[in-house]
């Protein structure tokens, strides 16, 4: 399947800022399930702002990281991504992905993914009597989908997995954080993945900027689990970067210098260009 992606992130400041520094993970991952046909990331500022491209490099997780700075005064920054990717359904298996971080490193939680007793119990109950990492991960994803009902607007960027579970509602970020924490509590390396989803049928468009989890399955390697939709990522998905939680895997990590308050607006459209 060939997907076209349009992804705009707009930062607005109520007062001119002195500058902005960003660390971007906005390029699709390189693995057998996807091939980039065309990909452009463009950063624009308002008049007076000067964009200075930073260094780029591939990190140990296999992600392309690109630094970018904006020299102020700046009141608005637009990060605009346009691209076309050919995807293949590998049933979630991250085949042919080159990375150097050992899976054991992903046995360490962050505050956002750390399992409390609720999440640990859920993980235990969901996998009781189930052998094999793959089946256990499937069972986990199912249990999380049930325990955290999809509902936008109730959680926010800083909500932890444990909090979302207690609330019983959340969005894809919460599902992914919870999946990571639950898997780790069972001794399975797991991580958070950010990317895009071409929503099928009447899928919610805001979930086009999507997130899911990957669990390490011996013999298969990393396998994606999208607890929000109860599936493994297929050719409707485009994988970008990974990290131990939502913050680490964020497509853009940034900081603005100055007195102003920031407002962020994200628009993503993923469309099928060709079946």
């Amino acid at each position: 399947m060939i997907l076209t992606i349009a992804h705009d992130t707009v930062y607005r400041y109520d007062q001119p800022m002195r500058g902005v520094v960003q660390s971007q993970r906005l390029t699709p991952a390189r693995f057998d399930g996807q091939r980039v046909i065309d990909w452009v990331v463009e950063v624009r500022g308002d008049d007076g702002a000067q964009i200075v491209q930073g260094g780029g490099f591939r990190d140990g997780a296999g992600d392309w990281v690109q630094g970018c700075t904006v020299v102020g005064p700046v009141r608005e920054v637009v990060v605009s991504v346009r691209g076309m990717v050919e995807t293949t359904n590998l049933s979630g298996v991250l085949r042919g992905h080159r990375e150097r971080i050992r899976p054991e490193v992903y046995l360490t939680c962050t505050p956002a993914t750390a399992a409390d007793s609720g999440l640990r119990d859920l993980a235990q109950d969901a996998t009781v009597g189930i052998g094999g990492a793959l089946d256990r991960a499937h069972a986990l994803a199912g249990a999380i989908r049930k325990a955290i009902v999809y509902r936008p607007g109730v959680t926010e960027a800083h909500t932890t997995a444990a909090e979302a579970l207690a609330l019983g509602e959340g969005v894809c970020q919460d599902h992914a954080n919870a999946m990571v924490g639950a898997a780790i509590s069972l001794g399975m390396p797991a991580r958070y993945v950010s990317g895009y989803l071409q929503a099928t049928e009447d899928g919610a468009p805001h979930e086009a900027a999507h997130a899911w989890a990957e669990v390490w399955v011996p013999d298969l390697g990393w396998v994606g689990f999208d607890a929000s939709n109860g599936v493994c990522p297929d050719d409707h998905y485009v994988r970008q970067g990974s990290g131990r939680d939502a913050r680490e895997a964020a497509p853009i990590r940034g900081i603005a210098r100055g007195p102003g308050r920031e407002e962020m607006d994200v628009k993503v459209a993923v469309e099928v260009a060709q079946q």
Partner: protein
Amino acid sequence: MTGQAFFNEMYESGRVRGPYRQLEDWMGDMPAELRSLKQAEAEELFRRIGITFAVYGEGGDPERLMPFDMFPRVFAQDEWRRLERGVIQRAKALNAFLADVYARGEIVRAGLVPRDLVYRNEAYEAAMVGFTPPRGVFSHIVGVDLVRTGPDEFFVLEDNCRTPSGVSYMLENREIMMRLFPGLFRENRIAPVDSYSEELRRTLASVAPPKCERDPTIVILTPGAYNSAYYEHSFLADLMGVELVEGQDLFVEGEYVWMRTTEGPQRVDVIYRRIDDAFIDPLCFRPDSMLGVPGLMDVYRSGGVTICSAPGAGVADDKAIYCFVPEMVRFYLGEEPILQNVPTWQCGTAEDLKYVLAHLPELVVKEVHGSGGYGMLVGPKATREQVESFRVRIEESPGNYIAQPTLSLSTCPTFVDEGVAPRHVDLRPYCLVGERVTLVPGGLTRVAMKEGSLVVNSSQGGGVKDTWVLSE
């Protein structure tokens, strides 16, 4: 190694050992009045230059002076040569280990170091995986804490691969001794230590990043004036003739890091940082940190700046990894370790834990991630209550503790109220790793000022001495 037969570095079977020969007369000739005069002068000098060591968690004056003992600690040339080879060997092996565990992890694959101890270590930085810092060096200043138990017996207590402090004491102690007793330095051929700052500058310059094609600009990054080692940060910056900066003085623009100066931004090539990993860059590590520089890690990893020591260097110096350093020496260098490790029990393993709990009153127990002598039990010196309360802590999280036999630390003559008496000492030399691996002939000798005490940490009432290496 246990027992009460301490090795006295000055007297052996009633006779003065070679390196201390000159000091016997010096000590004998010094009238009590002169001694107190000199002691007062030394204190005045320390106070004037402002060298203090803040002490955490003890109350009182955090800016109090570190006790300075005027009686030097002396090594003969041949004694030092062996130590030097041992420390350099260790610094090389530790760096080889770091380069390995952030690349293919051969030592783990070979089954010599447990996987989890490395990859699940708190100090392991995923952000460093696959990145090779200039010259492959991760830890540019390695402080190796040594104790001596006999004429030829030295043991490594711990390694410090992050940003070991205390080198300013090595330099200031010498400076002050030379002012107080210029005659001593005429009568004895004492190897100078003042080349340290130039060696440090050269070491840092030698690891300039790939994108630097000029004489590199070096800075020292400090968390600020409230840090206990701030004096040292400014002292070293002065000696090297480089800027001392805080995070807010630096910023990232494009592919480089810049320093704000009165003449406009100046590019920075090498950052000797004296802040912890977690605070280096809020975009990569702790997002709430105001001490670091946003975007610094991206510049570093794309070759625009060098950070010394590399983030994640701490995985080589934790007390659990310590046990494997002799193995690292064999694995990476194909040599036998010159310096020995202290036998160590890992409370995280059932067998060791059983032994430790059964022998607590005779062991030294330390926290794996602790430092500065806090969270430490010295069995033979502890009360019954202290031992029992430690037992509870160990049982609660055994993996957090290691135990070692109580070492018979050597003693060195020390000025005390009653005259001169032996006190226990240790030694921290500072090995520099860049294009070359070098060790200035000297180090920081810490002395437990309390009679019988084996804890030399400044936070626990330890003092310092000038450390001499005699040249032939």
